[in-house]
């Protein structure tokens, strides 16, 4: 195949293919994450969720997409047409551009930039314009207020999240995402175990950055109608929606790459082999999990009340067996295929786990009021992130220059930062009644 393509464009072929795959798969994936969210919400609220469209509601995203595409495109009369048209485009473009530096697997990365992490942060900060210009262009008070609040919130929590990332970056030693995963492989453990507070700060910061509950005041239905998205309908609204979910996957991807080991499997250095083969035991884990799920599905299938559900269960069981088969087949294939398949699998598992944490938090905590939100960001998270950064840097210096054990220094740094966090939290709790009594500020 290599000799069919002129050498001048050969380096560009694979990235273009990856780009096309990402842009094609992403809207579908975003739609199914919405369905997943509704199902998880239903499960946490002891009900069933969408069940009508397709078996167990599996075709719901398709129905939603068709509806949104066919809706009438309304532009408010006095709206600024250029801005109205550009704003959703900016949001979606920035969300998609950030995928170009994301490492989905050892070889599945469009561009391994030297400053990959900063690039993704930069592009995420450009997404603010989609919100601000959208709110402005709608020529409506609710939209503008929602947009300005959302932008202020994004800017505040971006700082805190970035500082949380830097504390993990100190351990990695490079801004290139591929090398960060490599550093986690070299150090033998994921950075979440070395800097758990950095992970927590990034978790909170990323929930606020993607405008998810409990930080979703700017787009909460009961507060500002839909904030900056109020006047958008049909396809434009779906662009904003896609941008929001694409952003969620990006922040989950960053958290996975930096803190959860990227595409590494849980115990990357535990290389005990199955006796007699070159297959490592830990690599057999995904296949066994899929087999277990398949058996569970087959066991549940006869117990379903309705025939269609029996068929659905059996199909799901069959799919799991097929996946298990693919995993096992990849084990015996060439090295590249094996690394690719397993790397992609572990990356998706971790991203889904992080997104599940997002969903869990959404349906557990009540919404923050805007002044509480800003107070949390500026008076708790940013000082905590700075203290965490100093502590981790000190720990690293202590272990490198003074020869202390790295694990001990990190644990000491974590304990110190926890103490500071408790102090910060108690300070805010003491102050809040005074602020409330004075009628706010």
């Amino acid at each position: 195949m290599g000799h069919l393509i002129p050498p001048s464009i050969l380096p560009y072929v694979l990235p273009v293919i990856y780009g096309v795959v990402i842009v094609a798969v992403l809207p579908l994936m975003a739609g199914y994450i919405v369905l997943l969210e509704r199902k998880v919400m239903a499960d946490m609220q002891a009900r069933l969720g969408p069940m009508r469209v397709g078996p167990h509601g599996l075709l719901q995203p398709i129905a939603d997409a068709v509806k949104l595409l066919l809706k009438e495109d309304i532009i408010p009369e006095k709206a600024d047409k250029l801005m109205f048209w550009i704003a959703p485009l900016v949001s979606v473009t920035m969300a998609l551009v950030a995928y170009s530096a994301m490492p989905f697997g050892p070889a599945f990365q469009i561009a391994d930039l030297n400053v990959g992490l900063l690039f993704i942060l930069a592009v995420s900060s450009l997404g603010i314009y989609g919100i601000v210009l959208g709110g402005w262009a709608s020529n409506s008070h609710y939209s503008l207020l929602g947009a300005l609040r959302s932008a202020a919130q994004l800017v505040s929590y971006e700082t805190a999240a970035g500082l949380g990332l830097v504390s993990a970056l100190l351990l990695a030693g490079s801004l290139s995402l591929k090398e960060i995963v490599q550093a986690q492989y070299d150090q033998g453990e994921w950075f979440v175990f070395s800097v758990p507070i950095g992970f927590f700060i990034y978790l909170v910061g990323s929930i606020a950055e993607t405008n998810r509950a409990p930080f979703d005041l700017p787009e909460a239905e009961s507060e500002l109608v839909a904030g900056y998205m109020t006047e958008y309908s049909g396809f434009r609204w779906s662009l904003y929606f896609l941008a929001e979910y694409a952003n969620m996957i990006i922040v989950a991807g960053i958290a996975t790459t930096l803190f959860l080991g990227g595409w590494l499997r849980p115990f990357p250095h535990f290389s005990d082999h199955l006796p007699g083969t070159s297959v490592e035991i830990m690599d057999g884990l995904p296949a066994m999990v899929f087999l277990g799920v398949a058996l569970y599905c087959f066991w549940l299938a006869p117990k379903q009340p309705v025939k269609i559900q029996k068929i659905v269960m059996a199909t799901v069981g069959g799919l799991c067996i097929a996946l298990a088969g693919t995993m096992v087949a990849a084990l015996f294939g060439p090295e590249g295929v094996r690394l690719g398949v397993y790397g992609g699998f572990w990356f998706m598992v971790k991203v889904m786990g992080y997104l599940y944490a997002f969903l869990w938090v959404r349906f557990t905590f009540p919404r923050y009021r805007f002044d509480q939100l800003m107070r949390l960001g500026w008076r708790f998270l940013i000082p905590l992130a700075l203290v965490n950064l100093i502590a981790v840097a000190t720990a690293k210096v202590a272990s490198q220059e003074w020869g202390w054990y790295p694990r001990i220094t990190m644990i000491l740094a974590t304990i110190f930062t926890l103490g500071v966090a408790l102090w910060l939290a108690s300070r805010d709790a003491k102050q809040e009644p005074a602020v409330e009594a004075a009628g706010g500020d």
Partner: protein
Amino acid sequence: MALNYILFAFFAVMAIGSSILMVTRRNIIHSAVFLIGALLATAGIFLQLQAEFLFVVQIILYVGGIMVLFVFVIMLVNLDVSMRLVQFNRQKWVAGVLALVLGAQVLFALWVGRGELRLPAPAVDVSPRNTEAIGQALFQHYMLPFEIASILLLVAMIGAVVMAKRRV
């Protein structure tokens, strides 16, 4: 090599086009959006010059920070009235001619010295990489300006907060 020229031409046209549009728009928000375009094109030029750290710094600070500030203030002081008034002041012709004369002077200097700037030898060694090189330079040779810049930012922060506060 050709890709170098194409990228440069693309970003240069985008920068000049956006800046001309920025200076001539009636609607301030449109001007701000075109300035964002010009700044993004400048960031592209930085990337094309293989200065990747400045590329991301330009986007994070300039486009993601300073321009957000501009857009916020424009939304706070927006006067639909001002959009219907005369946009250019009374000295526009004199000022325009003077600016063009200034530009022509520098252009003459560039013309006289064309071809005199020597191109660099192709670099074979890329270590330390751009970010690390800047970090080393900032924290070793340029430590004093770095500290002064941080004090400058502190003073600017205090100044901006004081200026924008409502006197209750």
